């Protein structure tokens, strides 16, 4: 009950402080630019080659759609951190939590409520952006991705991973330190993912292991690669490295389970850490 109250409050805050509107407006703008751009490029390509077979265009259509989804993934991951990074630490520093947690509620309800509120917002936003990109590319290029819902869900899971990192950090770190940790972890996983991918091409085991360790530290890049594979099965098994949006090595399903365990574990840590600290 209290969890729901706090979650509602969190969403109302995003509304009142115009975060929701800013994100929606900029999201629409993003989709607009993506749609117009895709339309222009697509017209150019198909006009110049009217006699080519439609299969010819599958690769560029795929590439452009994956680029859009890649940016979507990046945006929601960043957004998940930005909206939540100051929430707990800021309210501890300003002693605003004091009159909340002296009410007949559990301290953990506050954390759970905030997590839920932010989680609902980032998940909806992920589906809006990701779904928008897919819909636009479908309308413009006719490309149908293989498992759109499963893929977007993985991106949403990514956002939840980052959200949980930022919530957990907020129980102990100052807002700025928390932001630094969250973004640097993300950067680390990002680079780790590439090291793993390229290492895989050259069959360098140490590089691959380094990548795996960084994925364990923060499973977001691995989840993205998994999502990319789910979206576009044709690329599986391709041996050439074709840029950051095109994934050649698929992380195992265990990674998805790991990400869920990661979120639950980190959330449990956040609850414990918030419970134990002095205000």
């Amino acid at each position, binding site marked *: 009950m209290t969890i729901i109250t706090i979650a509602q*409050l969190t969403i109302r805050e995003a509304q009142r402080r115009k975060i929701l509107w800013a994100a929606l407006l900029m999201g629409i703008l993003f989709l607009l630019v993506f749609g117009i751009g895709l339309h222009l490029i697509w017209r150019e390509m198909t006009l110049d080659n009217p006699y080519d077979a439609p299969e010819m265009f599958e690769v560029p259509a795929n590439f452009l759609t994956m680029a859009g989804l890649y940016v979507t993934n990046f945006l929601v991951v960043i957004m998940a951190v930005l909206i939540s990074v100051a929430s707990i630490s800021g309210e501890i520093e300003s002693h*605003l939590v004091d*009159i909340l947690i*002296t*009410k007949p509620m559990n301290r953990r309800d506050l954390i759970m409520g905030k997590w839920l509120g932010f989680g609902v917002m980032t998940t909806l936003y992920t589906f809006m952006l990701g779904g928008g990109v897919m819909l636009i590319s479908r309308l413009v290029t006719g490309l149908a991705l293989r498992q759109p819902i499963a893929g977007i869900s993985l991106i949403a899971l990514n956002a939840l991973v980052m959200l949980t990192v930022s919530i957990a950090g907020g129980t102990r770190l100052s807002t700025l330190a928390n932001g630094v940790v969250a973004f640097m972890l993300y950067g680390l996983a990002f680079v780790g993912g590439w090291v793993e991918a390229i290492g895989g091409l050259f069959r360098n085991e140490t590089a691959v292991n380094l990548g795996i360790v960084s994925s364990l530290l923060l499973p977001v890049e691995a989840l993205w690669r998994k999502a990319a594979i789910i979206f576009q099965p044709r690329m599986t098994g391709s041996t050439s490295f074709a840029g950051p949006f095109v994934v050649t090595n698929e992380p195992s399903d265990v990674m998805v389970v790991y990400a869920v365990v990661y979120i639950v574990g980190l959330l449990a840590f956040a609850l414990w850490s918030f419970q134990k600290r002095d*205000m």
Partner: protein
Amino acid sequence: MPDYAIETTHLRKEFGRKVAVADLTLQVKRGEVFGFLGPNGAGKTTSVKMLLGLTAPTAGDATLLNAPLGDRRTRTRIGYLPEHFRFYPWLKAVEFLDLQGRLYGMETQRRRNVIPQLLQRVGLAQATELKLAAFSKGMTQRIGLAQALMNAPDLVFLDEPTSGLDPLGRRLVREIIAEVSATGTAVFLNSHLLSEVEQTCHRVAFIREGRVLETHDLSQWDEDAISVKMRVGRISAELLAHLQTLSADVYQTDDGFVHVTVSAEKDIPTLVNWLVAHNHALYELNLERLSLEDRFLKIIGNHSGDTLTA
């Protein structure tokens, strides 16, 4: 077991090597207005935070309304106005109180009834739909007070409730404290405004370095120290020597006045009779009851030796 609103035994809090509260042992009765006084950094706020479960005590025990610290059900009967009260600036006054009521587990109907009354009571009836961001400091403090009384608590902690309030606001706080106390609510009041404490509290504790130095019942206190200030013709050594037999606290000031602290009113005629009998010309005699501030300075000063020498 006696029925206390607050009972603490050897409550202690250390922050690393810093001892914020050394040894807090006190009892507050039900319905009592209890003043908790002490210099800056004495550990008042830390004590309140321990009692409210914001900060975990390093050692010691306490009960609120006979329940151990941290008992969640008891919290439905406790109100709290923190030291630097503020809240989400994007909430309207009425929404803010409604949220607090919900967190207290109050029914919708009861919240609807109580909120307008409370806003009226703290003088914010016009600000119901105003966002907290638009509140002045005093208005913020007022709504903080309203929030602390939302659940008609049996025990309310007010940490410097009058900070930022104008004289009208301060009087309002005094009146509200008297009202809730009359209905049986115990009030634990941290304040530096001693004249107000004097007007509102039944008992006061003086603390310093996280220890209770003295606890006094204010109703029994008026009598025990009256300062007499007088102007006599010639201040002889004999005069001063005799006065010292009447009072331990005798001194002379540059403006020609002699100050004597007597412990009871009945000592005053004795003093005057002696002066007349011994041909001392008495030109002027004033009574000055010791204000709480005088006592505060005296008590805190008296006990300061043990640290200043350290």
